[in-house]
């Protein structure tokens, strides 16, 4: 895999075209362009405040670009109906953001219920999803506070997949977990992704996670996109900015 040209003409499922984003005169993202291909897992990597989460939120229009355009399915997000756009994109966040007053079942069923699916279809979908993400059926009527961190995150993933979206956005989905559970969930994510081949955009600051889960890595630094790299290319790069990320895990004898 080679460096993908950020400005290539290939129609990605998601495309950033010279996107800048500011809040109160402060630049958070500057002239970012890249595209995400169908079925790949693109990692947005960078330290806190690099703008990677902002980039993620621009995709489902939780934020709107100050300049430039974000295209989803070939259409600018500003032309999309925001509600429709969001319901067609799965959204997984850190600590899962589950609804504390809903059971596991109701949490997973949120989007189907918003879309007024018939009851039986919702229920069979919940059963199917719980199996898919490895949740025991006995957990169905539990509330989030009765679950472990790993189980909560599984519910978060199941909830995002409920309406079978083609695109999945994940904001540090495994960030708040203990190392063992994290490793387990990463592995399962890989298996799941092989089966479902969704187009995934995942934010992380963990370079091991990036190399393990990503097809390609988009590196952000201080609101700018340094580049988009294939992961072999990223791991072998001589670029000083990339070495900053890769060297520490080399020294730790490549535990991935």
């Amino acid at each position, binding site marked *: 895999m080679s460096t993908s040209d950020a400005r290539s003409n290939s129609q990605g499922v998601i495309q950033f075209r010279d996107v800048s984003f500011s809040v109160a005169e402060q630049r958070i993202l500057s002239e970012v362009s890249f595209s995400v291909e169908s079925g790949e897992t693109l990692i947005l990597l960078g330290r806190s405040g690099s703008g990677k989460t902002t980039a993620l939120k621009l995709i489902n229009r939780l934020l709107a670009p100050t300049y430039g355009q974000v295209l989803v399915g070939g259409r600018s997000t500003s032309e999309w109906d925001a509600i429709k*756009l969001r319901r067609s994109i799965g*959204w997984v966040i*850190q600590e899962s953001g589950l*609804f*504390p007053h809903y059971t596991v079942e109701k949490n997973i069923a*949120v*989007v189907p219920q*918003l879309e007024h699916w018939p009851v039986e279809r919702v229920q069979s979908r919940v059963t199917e999803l719980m199996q898919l993400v490895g949740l025991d059926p006995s957990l169905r009527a539990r509330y989030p506070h009765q679950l472990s961190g790993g189980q909560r995150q599984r519910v978060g993933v199941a909830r995002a997949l409920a309406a079978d979206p083609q695109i999945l956005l994940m904001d540090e989905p495994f960030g708040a977990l203990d190392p063992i559970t994290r490793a387990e969930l990463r592995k399962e994510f890989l298996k799941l992704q092989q089966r479902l081949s969704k187009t995934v955009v995942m934010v992380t600051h963990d370079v091991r996670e990036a190399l393990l889960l990503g097809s390609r890595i988009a590196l952000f630094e201080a609101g700018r996109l340094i580049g988009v790299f294939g992961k072999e290319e990223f791991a072998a790069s001589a670029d000083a900015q990339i070495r900053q990320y890769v060297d520490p895990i080399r020294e730790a004898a490549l535990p991935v």
Partner: protein
Amino acid sequence: MIDFFIHNRGQILTLTLEHMWLVGVAIGIAILIGVPLGILVSRKKWLRKPVLGGTNVLQTIPSLALFGFLLPAPWLGERADRLAIVALVLYALLPIVRNTYTGIMSVDPLVREAALGMGMTDGELLRRVELPLGIPFILAGIRIATVTAIGVATIAAAIGAGGLGELIFRGVAMVNDQLILAGAIPAALLAIGADLLLGALEARLRVPR
């Protein structure tokens, strides 16, 4: 003392019911106005200061003065109970509006973001997430408002609106302790009862986290 209660039970009961009616109607109206106002304030930032400040000022007016102020009002002045109810509503607004607002704002920002990210409209966010999670706060506001209103309503007797205050005012005028207690004890019991009842409801609806 007990003899006095038994002897006058008919009148005490009538006045207690009247008292409950005044407070009940007033709190009902205050909820119908206060909860939507609290929701509105959570949506429109610029309304926050004027609305919360305004209800705050209302609460600082001494109750006897408020009854007095309202007396010359055209439609209100005709009937004392109407006037008393309006004054009680004005008092009840602050805790209800403020607690509704606080309840909505107490929702974890991550949960709100998840709801929006999944494609809930503002109305769905409110109905499915913010109100169910904020309901214990709202109920706490209603509870404070109710207990306060039961106390304030005793003063409504000063303008002839009836209620248990009548016994108290009469007792004060006649220097009759039994008469004062005949009004004060049922009023205190009403307040305690309302507090316990609404407190229990609040605890039942609290979401464990």
